[in-house]
């Protein structure tokens, strides 16, 4: 499908052709919703966040600089809106109790299947053990497929910082699974 250049669409919206705004958002339609959903953990709240974010995008489209990536600009607004929403609801008062790293042990071929199963079942829950920044980096990279450079533009930090947060996020998740795996295998053996 022929896609108009983002800059042209932005110009059209600013000239008053509001229908172009929908075309501008369309490529990231699902991405926005999923990102908001992963951060908030609730589908309805995700929709609310998206509406807020779209309103901000429309209002501040004047400040969008030509030649820049609309994708990173819009994701930045979406991520900030999501965290503002969470701050407002004071959802981040939960106690994180799974910070201790578990010991790493041998991974026989047979257990790979258990690991895969565990991960698929618990990924959404595991996101809560990450700090807001780690979660944002992890989601932008692994859920939305943004590059390290794009993620750095979205979150307004260096690529080094993105790598550090990403590494920490994966270490935390791995340790969390290792701990749970230990628990489950312990329970099975008793």
């Amino acid at each position, binding site marked *: 499908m022929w896609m108009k250049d983002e800059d042209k669409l932005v110009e059209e919206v600013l000239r008053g052709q509001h229908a172009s705004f929908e075309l501008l958002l369309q490529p990231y*339609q699902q991405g926005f919703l999923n990102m908001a959903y992963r951060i908030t953990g609730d589908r309805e709240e995700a*929709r609310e966040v998206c509406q807020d974010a779209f309103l901000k995008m429309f209002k501040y489209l004047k400040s969008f600089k030509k030649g820049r990536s609309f994708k990173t600009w819009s994701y930045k607004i979406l991520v900030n809106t999501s965290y503002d929403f969470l701050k407002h609801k004071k959802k981040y008062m939960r106690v994180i109790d799974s910070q201790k790293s578990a010991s*790493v042990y041998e991974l026989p071929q047979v257990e790979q299947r258990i*690991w895969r199963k565990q991960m698929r079942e618990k990924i959404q829950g595991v996101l809560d053990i990450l700090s807001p920044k780690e979660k944002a980096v992890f989601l932008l990279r692994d859920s939305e497929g943004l590059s390290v450079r794009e993620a750095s533009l979205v979150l307004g930090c260096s690529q080094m910082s993105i790598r550090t947060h990403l*590494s920490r996020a994966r270490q935390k998740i791995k340790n969390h699974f290792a701990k749970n795996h230990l628990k489950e295998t312990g329970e099975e053996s008793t």
Partner: protein
Amino acid sequence: MKCRKVQRLLPLLAGAELPESKIPSVRSHMEECSRCRKDYEKYAILVSQTRAWFAENRTEWQEQEWQRIVRTAIEQGAEKKTAMVPWPFPKVWAYVLMAGVMLLITVLIIRPPFVEQTGLVPRYADVAQMGKPGGMEEMGRQEVVSMTMVSRETGLKIVWVFNKNFNLEENE
């Protein structure tokens, strides 16, 4: 490279975010260290599984819902059109600047009584004098102007006296 440093880089290697310059040293370490190799394996599974999970568990918009939300955003965000010309300066400093300019215009044109007036316009004291006996009348009746020239060398003094039409009345 030591295990401690490699452990920080393994999650990035598994997710293909590690800079190319660091890959050979991490890989050479992994060839010698079985613990790091196993950890790498775990990270590789973690990355592939989480990405697959995210891809499979995506929330979808209902087409109507999507359009409703975008339209609502446009309606709420669109500026209401009025017959008046929109204010061209959105910044606060512009308002301060405009207030300053207005004050300056007020001082220069309207000249409120609290501003001390100087120059060609009579001073406040002079204006006050006008109301007193002989004040206004004196100024109104002034019909003769004199001009005096004194020579420095000879001490000669010439006085011209003009009437209100600037015609020479008298020459001393």
